[in-house]
């Protein structure tokens, strides 16, 4: 019975079957038929991935207040459509090392990041963050430690790990926020060894340090770990996002670093000020790219 349950889990919305199917399709389906398949698969998941649909819908109600329900459902579909393309193109890069067009918004900040001895890249579940890390590692020949929220499905997590490590040609290492204490020490060590650590700062993960902040006028809990880490390791935080502009075309957006200096206040005050800076940047990004914010869990507190 357990074997059957385990096997069936492969076909759950976050099951590994869909990831494997995607790899199969990229290997077996002509590129010109992919838009048709992506359109239909998006529609399929729009109906069958109900928790994700509801989460995006509830987030959109806060981001774009006053919109009709129908309009927001269309926006949810569009967000899922972008997500489908994002993971498809990410896998395409992994399997075929295909070329991508990318623009850079914030060249100066990106160059500073590339030159930094050690740094924290603070990003969001937005656009193609996996591809972004791989491109960065390849372009600047830097190792990246990527911290992610754990995947609910073990096999999917293993598949994603392999994908990311293959995409980054060994320069991207993935860690999960399952054990907040041990990972904090690992990341601190990585920063002291002059590595770049990439953390997704838009989702509250159970067991990690969180603080409330204002996002779109509503209360949202965001992780404070990156700011504490930055303060201890004396490493700057670079907000970085990679948004999809079109077919195999991305924009890397880098903002000037958030510096959590030890002087000038208590640790709590500094963390709070940095968190506010981050939430302002995050809000600006989400406002412009709500259709690429893949927050498939509710982010905002209920009124």
């Amino acid at each position, binding site marked *: 019975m357990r074997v059957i349950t385990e096997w069936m889990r492969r076909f759950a919305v976050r099951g590994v079957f869909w990831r494997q199917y995607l790899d199969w399709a990229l290997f*077996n389906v002509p590129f010109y038929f992919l838009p048709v398949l992506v359109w239909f698969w998006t529609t399929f998941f729009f109906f069958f991935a109900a928790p994700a649909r509801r989460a995006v819908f509830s987030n959109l109600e806060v981001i774009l207040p006053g919109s009709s329900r129908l309009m927001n459902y269309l926006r949810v579909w569009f967000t899922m459509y972008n997500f489908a393309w994002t993971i498809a193109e990410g896998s395409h890069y992994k399997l075929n090392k295909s070329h991508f067009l990318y623009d850079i918004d914030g060249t100066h900040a990106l160059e500073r990041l590339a030159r930094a001895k050690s740094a924290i890249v603070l990003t969001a579940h937005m656009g193609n963050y996996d591809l972004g890390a791989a491109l960065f590692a390849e372009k600047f020949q830097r190792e990246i430690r990527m911290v992610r929220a754990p995947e609910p499905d073990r096999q999917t997590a293993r598949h994603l790990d392999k994908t990311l490590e293959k995409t980054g040609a060994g320069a991207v290492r993935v860690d999960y926020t399952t054990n907040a204490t041990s990972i904090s020490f690992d990341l601190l060590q990585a920063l002291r060894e002059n590595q770049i650590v990439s953390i997704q700062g838009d989702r509250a993960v159970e067991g990690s340090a969180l603080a409330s902040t204002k996002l779109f006028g509503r209360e949202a809990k965001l992780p404070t770990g990156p700011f504490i880490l930055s303060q201890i390791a004396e490493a700057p935080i670079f907000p970085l996002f990679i948004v999809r502009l079109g077919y195999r075309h991305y924009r890397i957006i880098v903002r000037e670093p958030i510096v959590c200096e030890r002087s000038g206040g208590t640790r709590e005050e500094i963390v709070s000020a940095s968190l506010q800076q981050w939430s302002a940047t995050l809000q600006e990004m989400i406002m412009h790219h709500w259709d690429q914010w893949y927050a498939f869990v509710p982010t905002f507190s209920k009124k």
Partner: protein
Amino acid sequence: MKNVPPNEARSNYFALPRLIRKLSGGDATPSESNWPEAVSMGSVVYLISYLFTTNLLLPRLGWWQTAIVLPLLLFGLWIGWLIVLYINSLIATGCQRIGLCADLPRRRVQSVLMGILTTVFAAQLLTAGPWLRAIGALWILGVALNLAAALLLALFHDEPSQL
């Protein structure tokens, strides 16, 4: 700062637009990065298979059944294509095992098989009403021109042609 990989951004996949590009002094290197080409060709393939299926089914259905079947068929056909793609992939694997098209990527073999199947659908449309006949004829003409362009590109010692 913009990073544009060579020959990727504005090139084509199919032989006919590549030949036109070459004749007008442009670059004929095959590319899978052309979004308008991907969307238009994928939609046309799907449209022809949809028209073929509706043409088979509609004469047997009443008006109310037609009203139900037409939208459902849009999604039913997607399932049908998934099965066809899987069978085609098995054929492609089989061909490659016996040494046929061994140096071609599997999605290129799949493209040839899809092209053959869609042309069969289009040929069937030639026996239908005037609009469907025109669509079928246009597809067949397009395939013929593309094959001719592929041949010409091969004679020009170009890259392997895309069918």
